[in-house]
């Protein structure tokens, strides 16, 4: 009996309504302030993006024109253009796209359709996620040694393209794996039940259904490759190419390389900063286009079954 009274007593002191009320207003205020701070830091990220785009755009004004896009390099900033770099980047993509899509999709098919849940699958998966975390400059050293010197491809488009392909391959593999895994099992069953072999089922059912996902992932990988600089610098890709490349064994320059060297040279000649900014705008427009295509594909083919 006495015990119960004691309990009641503690309970009452704990639940001192006035104290709680006072406390509550304070807690609500802290909550509001914190929300504002959290929102502020989210806003910060958006703000930086805005400033970055605005700054680069204003710096490029007056420099980014048709003449800039269609001329080759010159020692006079007013006459310099990025045609060679645009063609170089384009030829680079012509190598990266087929190599990564073929290897990436084939790897994904092997992992998901042939070696599903095997030890080999988990080993390759772990390997790929580690490769994705290797700094791009290391891929440059690999390319320099294997493609540049061992296979004697030098600083050619082929050497650059193969190096870039290895760099972005993990992105394509992961995207293709997800796309293949998302193909519902009942479609595979329908095909097998018609007497289709495994390869026929993959070719006629799995790949067509997974294609939008594969394409989206591939475009994202390409947009990574087109902006990547460090491996090309390590491979010794120069910015001083006056001749426009015509074949895959030619030396070349690319948009990010051009940006890099112009930025470094801006210490000497201020106008080079404007040229770099103009080149960045050109690069970002390309990236925006590629991403828009990826988004369009994703939206158009979203879940039809």
């Amino acid at each position, binding site marked *: 009996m006495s015990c119960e009274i004691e309990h009641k007593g503690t309970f009452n002191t704990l639940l001192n309504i006035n104290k709680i009320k006072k406390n509550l207003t304070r807690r609500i205020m802290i909550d509001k302030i914190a929300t504002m701070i959290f929102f502020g830091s989210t806003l910060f990220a958006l703000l930086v993006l805005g400033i970055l785009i605005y700054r680069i755009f204003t710096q490029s004004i007056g420099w980014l024109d048709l003449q800039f896009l269609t001329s080759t390099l010159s020692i006079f900033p007013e006459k310099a253009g990025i045609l060679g770099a645009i063609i170089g980047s384009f030829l680079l993509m012509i190598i990266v796209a087929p190599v990564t899509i073929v290897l990436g999709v084939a790897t994904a098919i092997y992992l998901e359709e042939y070696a599903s*849940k095997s030890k080999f699958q988990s080993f390759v998966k772990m390997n790929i996620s580690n490769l994705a975390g290797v700094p791009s400059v290391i891929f440059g050293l690999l390319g320099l040694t294997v493609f540049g010197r061992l296979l004697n491809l030098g600083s050619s488009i082929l050497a650059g393209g193969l190096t870039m392909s290895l760099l972005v391959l993990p992105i394509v593999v992961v995207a293709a794996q997800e796309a293949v895994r998302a193909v519902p099992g*009942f*479609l*595979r*069953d*329908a*095909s*097998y*039940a*018609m*007497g*289709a*072999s495994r390869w*026929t089922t993959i070719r*006629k*059912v799995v790949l*067509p*259904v997974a294609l939008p996902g594969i394409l989206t992932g591939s475009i994202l990988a390409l947009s990574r490759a087109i902006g990547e600089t460090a491996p090309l610098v390590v491979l010794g890709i120069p910015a001083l190419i006056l001749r426009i490349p015509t074949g895959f064994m030619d030396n070349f320059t690319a948009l990010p390389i051009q940006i890099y060297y112009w930025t470094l040279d801006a210490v000497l000649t201020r106008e080079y900063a404007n040229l770099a900014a103009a080149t960045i705008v050109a690069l970002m427009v390309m990236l925006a286009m590629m991403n828009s295509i990826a988004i369009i594909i994703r939206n158009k083919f979203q879940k*039809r*079954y």
Partner: protein
Amino acid sequence: MVNKELANKRSIFKVNKLNLWYGDDHALKDLDFEMKENNVSAIIGPSGCGKSTFIKTLNRMVELIPSVRTSGEILFNGKNIFDNSFRVEELRTRVGMVFQKPNPFPKSIFENVVYGAKIHGITRKSHLMEIAEASLRSAALWDEVKDRLNDNAYGLSGGQQQRLCIARSIAIQPEVLLMDEPTSALDPIATAKIEELIIELKKEYTIVIVTHSMQQAARISDETAFFLMGELIEKGDTKGIFTTPKDKRTEDYITGRFG
């Protein structure tokens, strides 16, 4: 009378001492089963009794699940389907299957019907057209879709999709059609249409249908088999099973005492 007629028919499937395990799980136990030509056999039983597993064994679809082991033999036209010389692809062209949920490909109606013909080497357009029309007619779908063969199959209703899947199966002229609860995802009207179709198809194909609806089994089948916990409890002509079941467990199931 009925029994005598049955006995004269040719045997299509003969299952001897079939056992199946999913890992350590013994799913089918010492099954013996015989199926006659141009018959509809219904398989009934509570869920989890192995009836789906059983018909998926008949076209070896069950082997797509890893860790499945089988023993015993299944003779299809006298040849053991587990023999190495019997290619599983060939078996599946001769033993077609219709699934619980309609599963057309995300392609046009036409491409769905001719899928099997195309992957097995029939390429001429006129042949494909002929095959598409014949199979869609047999599946009682032709009149509904003849003007929109190039539309995506997912624009069809559930019942139409299921009939499309039946058309797709019979397009490569199998001898047997396995149906795994083909109407369980459909409304009563669509179900009635499919049942009508099955009775029609019986003239040309041997049909095995898994169903959890005893009324359906009674309506369309010639023979009925009752499965319980991986065992075949009783099998005989449908009328007999539903009027005078020999086994107590069969009687309990069809009178609704469990299941």
